[in-house]
């Protein structure tokens, strides 16, 4: 046996010498000549037919403007694919990449996987602060490096069933969280140990009701100027968690709600709980307006409003959580000039942005396109445009560690809503969460 151990050790030592860390960095650059014919590859995540048609229409419009650039687009690309391709580099890697999440912006900016766009912006004479809406500029940059730009945004608001509101004698959507709780209770009809109809499904594992989405209503500060987690400092997170626990208990308790939640259909199917009237109110993004309009079985009246705000911030009603799609240029691309032309077109051309926004019901991300008269005027959609444009709307800060801090917070939040952590211990627990987030960020530091 000892001889075996020695043999393994020897083999290990020998191979350790070979195990040099290999880096995937293939350095590209902006060396391409725009007067020559070029083909660039563009990866995006859109997959529904209406979305693909809309992005393809924009690509064709771009190619008409730049006849010597051809764009080869690949749809339905996930973040995982992007990660792998960017890390691997090489010829098969894309030139332009867009991602639905803002999670990786910190890492992509800091590591240089996405090229810094500030020089390109300067060359094209674009003043980014005057062009893009303020919150969207924040989630596309990391530590002052603008390595991506916003390409349409999402905002979260409240969908409510007007018929159910009428029946319950509620005149208008709730504006403060105490109104919200009262309405949710009024709209709840219990049946046995379940529900015939639920006012609102608050559970953090629900469709869009994640802790960080909710938190947009409380305007929290996640990190201080030095990048340290400060969840326990302000009252936002403590208030939100305390409120959540109260709401869960008022609506029948965590176990009962979770059991009811397992009878919900898939979020994006026509069996979505709001579509089939299992719930009277739902927090959701602007894309739901399209789903509801297209679902022929939705025969009730519904409307949209901003999510309510805490009672002590009643004057700030109208704000919400905002996020969006990001687009960047791969560091490995050798055609960065052409790639920039394309990115510039998609993110700043008002006509392109507005037609795209109308087609897939996302919120435009430049001031000019928000003011455009061509933007869809339907009131249910306009609610979200206003939320996105509200200066108090907020999003998650990009970090080197992606959304790890959000996951750590969520883990704690689950334990509060289910009653495992008593309400009195929330602030204490948040201090531990802060400490943990700092440790994790330190570990990710390069």
């Amino acid at each position: 046996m000892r001889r075996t151990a020695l043999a393994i050790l020897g083999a290990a030592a020998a191979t350790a010498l070979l195990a040099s860390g290999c880096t995937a960095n293939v350095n590209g650059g902006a060396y391409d000549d725009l007067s020559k014919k070029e083909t660039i590859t563009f990866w995006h995540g859109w997959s529904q037919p209406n979305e693909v048609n809309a992005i393809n229409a924009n690509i064709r419009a771009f190619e008409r403007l730049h006849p010597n650039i051809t764009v080869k687009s690949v749809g339905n690309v996930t973040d995982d694919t992007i990660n792998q391709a960017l890390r691997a580099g090489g010829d098969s890697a894309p030139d332009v990449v867009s991602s639905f999440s803002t999670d990786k912006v910190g890492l992509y900016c800091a590591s240089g996987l996405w090229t810094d766009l500030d020089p390109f912006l300067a060359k094209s004479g674009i003043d980014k602060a005057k062009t893009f809406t303020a919150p969207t500029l924040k989630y596309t940059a990391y530590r002052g490096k603008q390595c991506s730009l916003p390409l349409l945004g999402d905002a979260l608001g409240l969908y409510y069933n007007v018929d159910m509101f009428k029946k319950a004698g509620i005149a208008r959507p709730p504006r403060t969280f105490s109104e919200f709780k009262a309405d949710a209770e009024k709209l709840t009809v219990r049946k046995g140990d379940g529900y015939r109809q639920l006012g609102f499904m608050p559970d953090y594992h629900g469709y869009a009701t994640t802790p960080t989405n909710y938190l947009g209503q409380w305007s929290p500060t996640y990190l201080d100027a030095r990048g340290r987690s400060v969840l326990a400092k302000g009252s936002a997170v403590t208030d939100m968690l305390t409120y959540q626990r109260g709401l869960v208990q008022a609506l029948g308790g965590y176990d009962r709600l979770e059991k009811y939640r397992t009878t919900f259909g898939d979020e994006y199917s026509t069996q979505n709980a709001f579509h089939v009237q299992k719930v009277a109110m739902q927090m959701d993004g602007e894309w739901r307006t399209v789903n509801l309009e297209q679902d022929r079985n939705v025969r009730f009246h519904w409307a949209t409003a901003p999510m309510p705000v805490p009672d002590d911030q009643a004057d700030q009603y109208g704000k919400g959580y905002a996020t969006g799609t990001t687009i960047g240029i791969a560091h490995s691309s050798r055609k960065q000039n052409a790639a920039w032309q394309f990115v510039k077109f998609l993110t700043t051309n008002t006509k392109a942005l507005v037609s795209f926004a109308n087609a897939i019901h996302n919120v435009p991300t430049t001031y000019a396109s928000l003011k455009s008269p061509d933007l869809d005027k339907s009131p249910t959609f306009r609610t979200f445009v206003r939320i996105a444009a509200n200066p108090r709307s907020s999003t998650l800060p990009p970090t080197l560690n992606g959304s790890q801090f959000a996951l750590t917070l969520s883990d704690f939040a689950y334990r509060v809503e289910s009653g495992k952590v008593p309400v009195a211990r929330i602030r204490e627990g948040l201090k531990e969460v802060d400490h943990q987030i700092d440790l994790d960020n330190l570990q990710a530091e390069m």
Partner: protein
Amino acid sequence: MTDARRRAALAWIGTHALGVAAALFFVLPFVFLLLTSVMSDSQALTSNLWPTSWHWGNYAQVFHTPGFLTWWRNTVIYAVVGTVLCLASAIPVAYALAKFRFRGRRTAMVLVVSAMMLPPQVIVIPMYLVWAQQFHLAGTLWPIIIPLAFGDAYSIFLLRQFLLTIPDEYIESAKIDGCGELRALLRIVVPMAKPGIAAVGLFQFFYCWNDYFGPKVYAASNPAWWTLSLGLESFRGAHHTNWNLTMAATLLVMAPVIIVFFFAQKAFVEGVTLTGVKG
């Protein structure tokens, strides 16, 4: 009736009652899956056990899911190519370990057993980096197929156990007739070891067919290389379906395995006993 006969009858009833109860535990899940798979969208979200209307079209709909046939093709490629490569490389190694006398044979067996017991997660990170960065094969199934051409430890071990049961005299007499080792292996040993090879081949086939971790690491990022396991995992979320279609897809993924089993029952039982009992 005598006492002994009455007792025997009671024992019969007791054993078979237990057997039926146990059989229900094993069979009922299949029945419920089948019943749910033909329900309507909205009924599948109730706790009804029996379909109010039968929607056999659900199966057709699953077949028409974008990608479903691609997942089938990829799974077949992985399982067939993987099994062939695995057998081709494992048979000579197992033969050498079973029948050759050489120094370090015991050490070699220790290493085979160690490799067999190694959780794949232990080595996956460096392996992934090599396949992705040096060979640019991330996003395909090749990183899990190619290693099978270099002797899978589990198959080597099982084959060796089987080859040990073949008497040396047959091989010796072949050599006396002028056969080299290779010809002795191909002419004498392989035909005699057919049941063992079949069992090991089936095991490898099913391992690949059912594998989830390997495809998840290497192919998850590229839908063109998804296997049935990956496609099925995301079926509910990615295609916005509900339990009825998900269950139909689940049964369609289970079906081929069960069909193969009925054709190759004997080889299976042979293989399972090989893993534990003989040796």
